[in-house]
């Protein structure tokens, strides 16, 4: 694949939506300009977009494009040399991790299961959490709580937090259709904080003492258990490259793992790993 062509074509498609924003970007073969193609995980993508924006501020001569498409196609495109960096939201399989492949961990993320602070339940094992979210358990006494109908809350299907829940907790099983949909993490927190029978979930950065965070399989949610990998409902984001990272690839990896790049990701609610 002709990289220059791909970059130019993608930019041409994006231009009408971006309007004036693209006018300062020179996609010609201007002297001294470098290009960087990044693609992969849909889960990682929204964060990668912000990382690329931060990178552009300090490296204005590198034209960077970041696309979705999924972890598997991203890794394949990387192996074929069609892109420079693949976004992965999981560990590589042994078959993908050949000698030239390098997977650089840039952040972790976790989902908190939350209830009203007055709910006596403190811990759920994974199977019970799934049964609650799927609507198979409908009473708090099914999981050792005080009898009362469980009221489920959820986010819209397209949101990152809802998708993370369905992948990490539900393992892609269908959530119960009875759940009430809330518009944001803040709204979820407020709803669960008001409702003694509520069962909801939050991205880590939306957690406050207004809600009670449940332990999972006896493991409390916290920075140490997420970094150690013991808390089960966590995911890892990797930048995957091939060969010795030099030029624009090396600069982007350094930025993503630098204090500046890491604080940017922390500001978006992820857990820094450097």
């Amino acid at each position: 694949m002709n990289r220059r062509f791909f970059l130019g074509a993608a930019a041409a498609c994006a231009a009408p939506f971006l309007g004036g924003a693209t006018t300062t970007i020179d996609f010609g073969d201007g002297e001294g300009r470098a290009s960087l193609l990044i693609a992969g995980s849909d889960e990682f993508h929204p964060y990668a977009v912000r990382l690329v924006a931060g990178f552009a501020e300090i490296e204005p001569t590198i034209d960077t494009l970041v696309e979705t498409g999924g972890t598997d196609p991203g890794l394949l495109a990387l192996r074929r040399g069609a892109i420079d960096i693949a976004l992965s939201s999981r560990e590589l399989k042994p078959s993908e991790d050949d000698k030239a492949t390098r997977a650089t961990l840039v952040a972790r993320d976790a989902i908190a299961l939350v209830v009203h602070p007055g709910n006596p339940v403190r811990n759920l094992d994974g199977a019970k959490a799934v049964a609650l979210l799927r609507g198979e358990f409908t009473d708090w006494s099914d999981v050792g709580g005080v009898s009362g109908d469980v009221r489920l809350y959820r986010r819209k299907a397209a949101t990152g937090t809802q998708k993370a829940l369905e992948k990490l907790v539900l393992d892609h099983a269908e959530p119960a259709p009875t759940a009430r949909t809330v518009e944001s993490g803040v709204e979820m927190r407020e709803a669960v904080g008001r409702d003694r029978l509520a069962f909801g979930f939050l991205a880590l950065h939306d957690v406050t003492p207004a809600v009670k965070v449940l332990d999972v399989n006896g493991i409390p949610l916290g920075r140490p258990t997420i970094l150690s990998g013991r808390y089960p409902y966590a995911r890892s984001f990797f930048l995957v490259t091939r060969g010795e990272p030099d030029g624009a690839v090396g600069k982007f990896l350094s930025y993503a793992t630098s204090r500046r790049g890491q604080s940017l990701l922390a500001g978006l609610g992820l857990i820094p790993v450097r």
Partner: protein
Amino acid sequence: MMTIRSWCVLALVSFALVGGAARADDASVHIMGSNSLLPAAQRVAEAYMTRHPDVIVVVRGGDSGPGLKALLDGTTDVAMISSAIPAATTKRAKALSVTLSARTVALDALVPIVHRDNEVSDLTVEQLGRLFGGAVSDWSALGVPAAAVTLVSPPAGSGTAAAWRAAVLDGGVQTPKARQVASARMKAAVAADPSAIGYLGLGAVDGSVKAVAVDGVTAGRGTLLDGTYPLRREMALVTRDDASPAVMGFVAFFASAEARAAVEEAGLLPAGRKE
């Protein structure tokens, strides 16, 4: 007054300096590798971060082989291994002008496991070698009712598999008939098949399968410590000679009483008993 103010300014400046240093890029430690050592490392990492809130310790599994590969390509700072460093790794490190050093942190027994209904309760190292080398393929050759043996083994990149080859096959080749399953699924695979035999580290064995004694000795803390149990291995942390002080600090922490307790809690025996 003046003195106090100067002191305050000094204190502020040094606070800023210390704060800056503590949050520098090298205040993170990435450790990755052996799934057998993973539960112990996770507990030690959590204890370390509780003591040093400014240090980030990230722990990942993925087996010994991928851990060493990540150490060489610079995507991890510490590799966890549950068998000796392979010659190929040492050679690759030399080509990259990197010196690796290993510190043994735990001892473990390799335990043969069978289905709970299997009548076999004791095998010799030699019998295990004939089974996993492919010379014996029916249980009747070992004095139990006839049935084709299902050999189950962890993936080739696993340190458990490498340590088993070293201890049971004397470094020889395991028969390709062995079915490879992820370490995490080993117990389920053996529990589901009455004619299966597999192997695990001592910390991972539970009542869902039957542990087989080796040369008449049952694996346990006592027999591991007194050296009578024959199938043992050392688990180590491997670092590069260019490791940061933060990395060396974390590795050194494994010798502390707190870390040793965490290693024991994970079912392993801490190495290097204190006198």
